[in-house]
């Protein structure tokens, strides 16, 4: 019940953030809201757009949840997303003749492995070399984008060698679409299933419990006989695997080929999505839906008013800052109330 109340309170707060931002931009609030809601949910096409944008946000957001819950502040979702995609494109490049269904599966597996391996570098650097993950993952993002640039205009370039793109996947090797008119694909369902899986992992398995324990207090994990380093490394691998999978879903669900615009900052947006979702898998379903709808809705808004697409970023920023501030305030209040009745001399 309490969680439900908090969710409702947050939804109200997010709508409020939206209204304030619109007002600040000097847009007619009522009309703008109608355009946004209409663009996000008003039609089959709008709903499809919302869910298509929600999907990569959800899966990368879950990747952030796993890492951050273990105390590994992975900022490298973008790099892991891209390297995952590259792993998938490499499979297609090497084995284009695989049966389509098998090819799709092999690509998804390769993206998982690619993302995990890439995040593993950052995990290894922190655990063995003391390089903070925050720093290494940021830097690895740049390397990944350069890698993408090099690959799509070099070894993985399409066969005509005209555009900086990889060879387009045949339609049969793409994720299934529900309608010819919209882009909605089965990856959206997969994403929600992954969210449920992450929930089960974190709260119903021993390994997930230890991951949360390590994030909350690594010394307590150590004192109970579990190596915080091994758990952190595992969390980074899982986190990267999810971000890579997000790349794979985007690749086989939407784009079908990689270019420099392969990731629309999904891996970066994953961080506000995860924070807004309270670092909880179910919460992240909600926050990724909100952001997905915001993207789809503001695209519609931009079509009919002078509002640029930048407004979506402003709203995001307002929402996240408001939320983080609120959470800090609540935590502070809870701490003051529960001041332990015990002193140190």
């Amino acid at each position: 019940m309490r969680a439900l109340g908090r969710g409702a309170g947050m939804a109200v707060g997010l709508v409020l953030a939206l209204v304030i931002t619109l007002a600040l931009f000097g847009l007619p609030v009522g009309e703008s809201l109608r355009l946004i809601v209409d663009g996000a949910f008003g039609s089959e096409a709008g709903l499809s757009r919302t869910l298509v944008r929600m999907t990569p946000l959800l899966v990368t957001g879950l990747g952030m949840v796993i890492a951050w819950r273990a105390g590994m502040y992975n900022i490298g979702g973008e790099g892991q997303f891209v390297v995952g995609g590259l792993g998938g494109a490499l499979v297609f490049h090497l084995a284009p003749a695989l049966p389509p269904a098998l090819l799709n599966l092999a690509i998804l597996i390769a993206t998982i492995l690619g993302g995990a391996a890439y995040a593993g570098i950052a995990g290894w650097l922190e655990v063995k070399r003391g390089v903070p993950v925050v720093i290494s993952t940021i830097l690895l993002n740049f390397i990944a984008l350069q890698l993408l640039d090099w690959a799509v205009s070099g070894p993985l370039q399409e066969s005509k060698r005209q555009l900086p793109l990889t060879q387009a996947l045949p339609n049969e090797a793409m994720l299934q679409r529900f309608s010819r008119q919209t882009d909605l694909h089965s990856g959206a369902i997969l994403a929600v299933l992954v969210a449920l899986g992450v929930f089960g992992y974190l709260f119903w398995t021993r390994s997930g419990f230890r991951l949360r324990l390590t994030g909350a207090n690594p010394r307590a994990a150590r004192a109970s006989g579990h190596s915080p380093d091994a758990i952190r490394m595992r969390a980074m691998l899982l986190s990267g695997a999810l971000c890579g999978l997000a790349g794979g879903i985007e690749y086989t669900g939407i784009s079908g080929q990689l270019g420099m615009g392969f990731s629309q900052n999904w891996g970066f947006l994953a961080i506000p999505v995860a924070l807004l979702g309270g670092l909880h898998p179910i919460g992240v379903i909600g926050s990724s839906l909100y952001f997905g709808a915001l993207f789809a809705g503001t695209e519609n808004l931009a079509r009919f008013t002078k509002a640029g697409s930048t407004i979506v970023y402003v709203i995001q920023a307002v929402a996240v800052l408001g939320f983080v501030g609120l959470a800090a305030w609540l935590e502070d209040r809870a701490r003051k109330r529960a001041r332990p009745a015990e002193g140190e001399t």
Partner: protein
Amino acid sequence: MLEVRSLSKRYGPVQALDRVSASFLPGEVHAVLGENGAGKSTLMQVVAGFLLPDEGTVTLEGKSLPLGHPIASRAAGVEMVHQHFMLVPAFTVEENLALARLGSLAGTLDTARLAQPALDFARELGWSLDPKTRTGGLPVGIQQRVEILKALSGDAPVLIFDEPTAVLTPDEVDDLFRVLRRLRDRGKTILLIAHKLAEVMAVADRVTVLRRGHFVATAPIGEVNERRLATWMVGDLPTAIQPLDVPLGPVLLEARDLVVLGDRREEAVGGIGLEVRGGELLGIGGVDGNGQVELAEALVGIRPLRSGQIERRSRDPKTAATVGYIPQDRQADGLALTLSIFDNLMIAGTDRPGLRRGPLLRIGAARQWADRVVERFQIKIGGLSDPVSGLSGGNQQKVVVGRTLDAIPDVIVAMNPTRGLDIRATDFVHQTLLDAARAGAAIVLISTDLDELAALASRTVFMSRGRWTSTLLGASA
């Protein structure tokens, strides 16, 4: 003369200071000695104005000091050299020294002029310091010198040193003592918080001992010896009680020639062994920081051995030995304060058969188990989902003790399990440990509290610098 009269300070159930009175003379190094939790830091923080006492007064040369106002205390002539350095690492030595003497925020800043008195003291003490180096990169011994110079530059008559030797090498300790004597000869009142007896004997002129918030005694150093001070610190050696009267089982914990490294790669445990039988409670005494933590962690298997062997055996030969560990600092090592009470109980629950199925947890069964532990150990909680940080210290410790001892592991290592607890909670933990021993567990109880060891242990050994020093109490093996 600096005098404290009838100072009391209470934190929740813990009486940190109980009507403590003492006086400190100009021209003396006056050591304030006591175990952890004796109240020595609390006393000094009151004198320096960082803590407001519940009652009592502090006077300097007959004038009352304003209580609870550190800036006013400094202005009145009491300076404190903190144990945890209060330096700005990105600032230079000169800037840090100037910071301590910063006047108003108006006007221009002349760091060189403000730092000059302190640097003059440095020269006088024979310390060469480059005023332009960043303090963050300096060795701790040098950082401490900067900290001392900050205190000296105000020419305060009273200087308080809070465990200044904790971070120093022996050579640095010698130099610090030389400086303390020098300052004493200039007529300053030097208060030295300490818990190492040898250091007190080496440098102090007089010593005041506190125990559990009470004043025990003040004496000139010539009239005491280490043994008497130790007795004052931990209480009279009590008459032996034999609480455990169960037939001893087989040896469940056996360690030989243990060498264990500390966090700074120093040899913390230097080649000792032990043997504990089922039904036996081995007490390990000694002053903190003599390798007890490292020994405990090695015995439970979370700290690698440099050399030597440890064998842990099960009461039931058909199963593997189970180990329970009650770490010394429940908030740092025992609990994850941001997680719920349920999660904190599950720290021990994830390995319990019956609460898991392969990699999965059986949440329903785990909840029932958690409820049972809460009931059995009378932990006072609102609900299992509440954060553990909201519990009192005693109930937090019951969470740690309850989850660890509920299944009665074969080998139990408990380290200062009653530190900071009130009498009822202490008694509860003691009874639980004894019950575990009666059920056949082999227990190692590491404690700095002699009363506790005497009350519980089948036999007691003492540890100093990573080795056994003696076997004083009991002789069952």
